């Protein structure tokens, strides 16, 4: 971890990573780590105040088979949920 971020475990076992007020480049580095953890099977909730995160994360996550849900959490704040999606091969879910 790189500084201002806060990481807590939610009531249902999900990891909540609050990156708000975390300066770059640590902010995006932690978002990248979150994708890796989600790809390994964890559910991660990111809270971010950097719009670049919602542009960067979905493509990177998708390429690792990670499903992404995003919503506005306030003015210039976003909530991003990352979790391992169902693997799809040849158009059929396995």
């Amino acid at each position, binding site marked *: 971890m790189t500084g201002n971020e806060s990481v807590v475990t939610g009531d249902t076992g999900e990891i909540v990573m609050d990156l708000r007020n975390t300066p770059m480049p640590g902010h995006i580095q932690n978002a990248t780590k979150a994708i890796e953890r989600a790809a390994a099977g964890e559910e991660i909730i990111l809270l971010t105040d950097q719009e670049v995160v*919602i*542009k960067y994360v979905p493509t990177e996550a998708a390429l690792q088979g990670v499903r992404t*849900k*995003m919503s*506005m959490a306030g003015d210039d704040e976003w909530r991003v949920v990352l979790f391992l999606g169902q693997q*799809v091969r*040849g158009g059929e879910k396995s």
Partner: protein
Amino acid sequence: MSDDIPVLDVRGEICPYPMMLTNTELDEKLPGVSALDVITDHPPALSTIPPQAMKRGYDVDIEEAGSGQWRIRLTKSAF
């Protein structure tokens, strides 16, 4: 995929067209629609469509929908 949700298939389109076509759907063709599924096979579109949709008040759910293609489900936000 629910039959009740309209589908915008932008497979074969590359940036900026997937985002532009989605914006046109939300702004002009289906203004105020409660949900829209966008199907794309262009990974960069996963970065361009969501910010525009969220600015228009939609939540975003991106899921792999086939080999090398994704479904972006846009749902009107309660926020």
